[in-house]
């Protein structure tokens, strides 16, 4: 989680920032799913002979979160492509001085 956070803050290239953001997101999902696990339980699909299930509610929440995450990643990456076309670069230290090169 912290590795992803560090990459988001300190990476120079915008694509690497998006990668760091995704790593951050995935590790947050792991945190939530680990809270739902029950020792000795199984996946929350009804089956004969099983009485103890893991909690299905965090799974539902994280399913939605993953899909929304990929939606925002797609929009973010297309913004990066547009930035590249407008400024010619996606390195943070290069386009900060380049206002309105369009």
């Amino acid at each position, binding site marked *: 989680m912290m590795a992803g956070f560090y990459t988001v*803050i300190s990476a120079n290239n915008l694509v690497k920032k998006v990668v760091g953001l995704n790593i951050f997101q995935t590790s947050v999902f792991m945190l939530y799913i680990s809270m739902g696990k029950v020792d000795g339980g199984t996946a929350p699909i009804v089956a004969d002979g099983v009485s103890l299930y893991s909690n299905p509610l965090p799974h539902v929440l994280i399913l939605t979160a993953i899909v929304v995450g990929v939606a925002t990643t797609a929009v973010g990456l297309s913004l990066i492509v547009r930035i590249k076309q407008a400024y010619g670069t996606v390195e943070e230290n290069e386009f900060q001085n380049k206002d309105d090169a369009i």
Partner: protein
Amino acid sequence: MAVLIDLVLLAMLALTALRVIFLKDLFTVVMLFSIYSFLSAAIFVSLDAVDVAFTEAAVGAGISTVLMLATLAMTGRTEKESEHSSLLPLIVVFVTGAALVYGTLDMPPFGAPDNPIHEHVAPRYIEESPKEVGLPNMVTSVLASYRGFDTLGETVVVFAAMIGVITLLGVRRIGRQEEAETTGFIAHEVLRTVAKLVIPLIVLFALYVQFHGDFGPGGGFQAGVIAAAAIILYALVFGLSPALQVVAPKFLMLLAPFGVLLYASVGVYSMLQGGNFLDYNQLAADPIAGQHYGIIIIELGVGITVFAVMLSIFYAFASQVEGANIK
């Protein structure tokens, strides 16, 4: 034994994430992200979250990686050195990490069945959902029935992402045949033969996942992504122009809103029958049958929209890459 597997997976995960920070070659960074996503899908399986693992593997290791690689094709492969020092980010990260670890010290023991999270709502869903909804997969019954409104919102978010990407990037029309270079790997015998064999199987698997989401892991999202992956494979091997002719962008732009409309119209129909919005009990004489109809139809709507959106986004990125190459 299970603990050992978890530890090994977590160690590999940490190594992958740490390596991402220091690499300047962005292609490797994206590949490491794909490995990270796949490892986390394995960890989800060992944490009993099979639906989540399925979605994470399909979406994270699949679609996200393809889109990032397409972006890299346009923005360049290496990262340049940063000018400011990394001391402040390090301090911020340490402070945040310490605060998070301190917060987790208060958490109840991992996996205990009587944790507070398992009181209240969860036992009610685990016990009542086979009787009220009648599906073996509890995650699908919560996602599609009890929390169906959230899933409608999620489908609309995915649709909005497609609108955003198409507005920003645009999709190339089919008519420009004179610019059609041979892209793809059509000259490569092995890829072509294997792709011809595998693509119908992928589509079949996507349909299986779609309709079996009630009985095992799966459902609309995973099925939509897998079906989109089949067409993406076709575009990668045989070239973008043939793929644009097989599944035209205009067709996708009709499909995506159709899925959302299908979902919402199930809700409106149940209102017209006298119930609440998205109350599936109104859809048939027997409430349980009504639940089954409702869930199958809305999962179909979700699958159609996700397929159309993922493929449109890929077309948008790929047309940009082609445009860059031609210049």
